């Protein structure tokens, strides 16, 4: 069986397993949208601040919705993999001639499908609520792509933690840490209007800031090359680095 055949079979397993657990992914649809509605009501007046980049706080904060959904990705991926490790499924795979990269990458397939559905639903809700997208149709597609890639990035981190620890609880810890990074970014206020210098420094160093600002630039500015390069750069590193580390750990696990 070649790599792609193995990958498609294992991916199908991941997709079916993920979609069969609505209790895991349904909250990832509801919570970000609820948060968007509440935050818009709470902080809508912020759009009246001098220098605020757009008159609508809804359009400003909309990019945070995709990111918030992506924060749940480690839980979606890592918990399932931790179960596979504990149940011995991974060990049984070691006895088969399965390609370890196919085994690894296919774990993210279920997440990718959920992330795509989320992005489409959020975009539909946003557009119906009055969100404007300066970059047009191409920008909309790019926001969806970035959203899926961001989810895959967080999923890759969850994968790494699950492989390293074999523990669903450790993966849950990633969720808490990710939320901390989320709030120490520019998700609620543009960088130019952050008056506390220490917070601005933290937000500038925080990679999550660039995952928020890239889709936001498509909503507000149109085509901001710097923001897009930084956003795609961060998400590429988020996907690549944990996957490389995971491949090494998988090699050791399967050889045992």
């Amino acid at each position, binding site marked *: 069986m070649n790599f792609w055949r193995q990958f498609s079979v294992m991916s199908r397993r991941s997709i079916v397993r993920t979609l069969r657990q609505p209790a895991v992914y349904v909250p990832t649809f509801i919570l970000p949208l609820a948060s968007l509605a509440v935050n818009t009501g*709470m902080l*809508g007046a912020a759009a009246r*601040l001098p220098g605020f980049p757009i008159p609508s706080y809804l359009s400003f904060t909309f990019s945070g919705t995709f990111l918030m959904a992506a924060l749940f990705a480690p839980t979606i991926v890592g918990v399932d993999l931790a179960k596979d490790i504990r149940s011995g499924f991974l060990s049984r795979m070691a006895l088969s001639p399965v390609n370890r990269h196919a085994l690894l990458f296919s774990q993210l397939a279920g997440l990718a499908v959920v992330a795509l559905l989320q992005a489409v639903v959020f975009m539909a809700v946003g557009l119906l609520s009055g969100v404007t997208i300066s970059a047009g149709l191409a920008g909309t597609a790019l926001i969806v792509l970035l959203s899926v890639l961001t989810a895959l990035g967080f999923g890759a981190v969850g994968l790494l933690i699950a492989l390293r620890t074999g523990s669903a609880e450790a993966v849950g810890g990633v969720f808490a840490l990710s939320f901390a990074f989320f709030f120490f970014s520019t998700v609620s206020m543009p960088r130019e209007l952050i*008056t506390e210098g220490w917070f601005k420094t933290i937000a500038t160093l925080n990679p999550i800031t660039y995952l928020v600002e890239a889709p936001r630039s498509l909503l507000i500015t149109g085509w901001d090359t710097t923001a897009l390069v930084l956003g795609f750069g961060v998400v590429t590193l988020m996907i690549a680095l944990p996957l490389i580390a995971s491949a090494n750990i998988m090699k050791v696990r399967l050889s045992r």
Partner: protein
Amino acid sequence: MNTTKNTLSIIRAVAWRTLRRSLTDPTIAAPAIVAPLFMLIAFTGSMSALTILPGFNFSGNYAAFLFVFVLYHAATFNGSAVGFTIARDFETRFIRRLFLATSNRRAIIFGLALASLVQGLLVMMIAAVVGLLLGMNVRGGFIDLVGLVCLALLLNLLACFWGCALGLRFRSSDGSMLAGSTFMTLLFMAPVFVPITLLQGFVQSVAQLNPFTPLLATGRGLIAGNPTGVPQAFGLAIVICILMMGLAFISLRGATRHI
């Protein structure tokens, strides 16, 4: 007299046991302080510019404005967590020994309440230190600040009774999320980041009906040194506290049938 002495000793014993458990296992008490402090730091850092909005009528700075929300959040989170610990005693069956120890079983609830007040004071002190480090501008006098602490302690107490009621109802750790999230949800539907006049849409409508809205307003007035609606806020908190206490007693009656 002996009954009173017995009741008081049970209250003291339960309170001491609860406090010792929190001190020896920080994972029990830590969430009550970590989450609110985290919000204080993150939101003060990111949203201080909101104070220049027309209609943001608050004489202190943003750290002080937000601090009252964080204080209430920490107090209610702590209170509900302490109250809910009674559920663990059902899981371990220790509750049988507690019930045997006293004819007045309400003493157990009052013991938890006492523990939550002591722990709540500690949690509030830590929150105050962090607030001051963030540059919180306290304009209220000594009496104002005592009033604010008393109001927060009342909220801590009512949350503890609520936690007890849920713990006695569920009798297992399954309800812990509900205990912790009830007041967090209520607080977040109040004017957290801006005054109520600056809220928009359905959030403003909900905030107008939310009992935490006048409590937050009074707390902010106390910390800013121009208190308003203090008797009404205390009255509201006491009434809710009595209701929660009644709920806890009703749950206790139901729980004793399941021993």
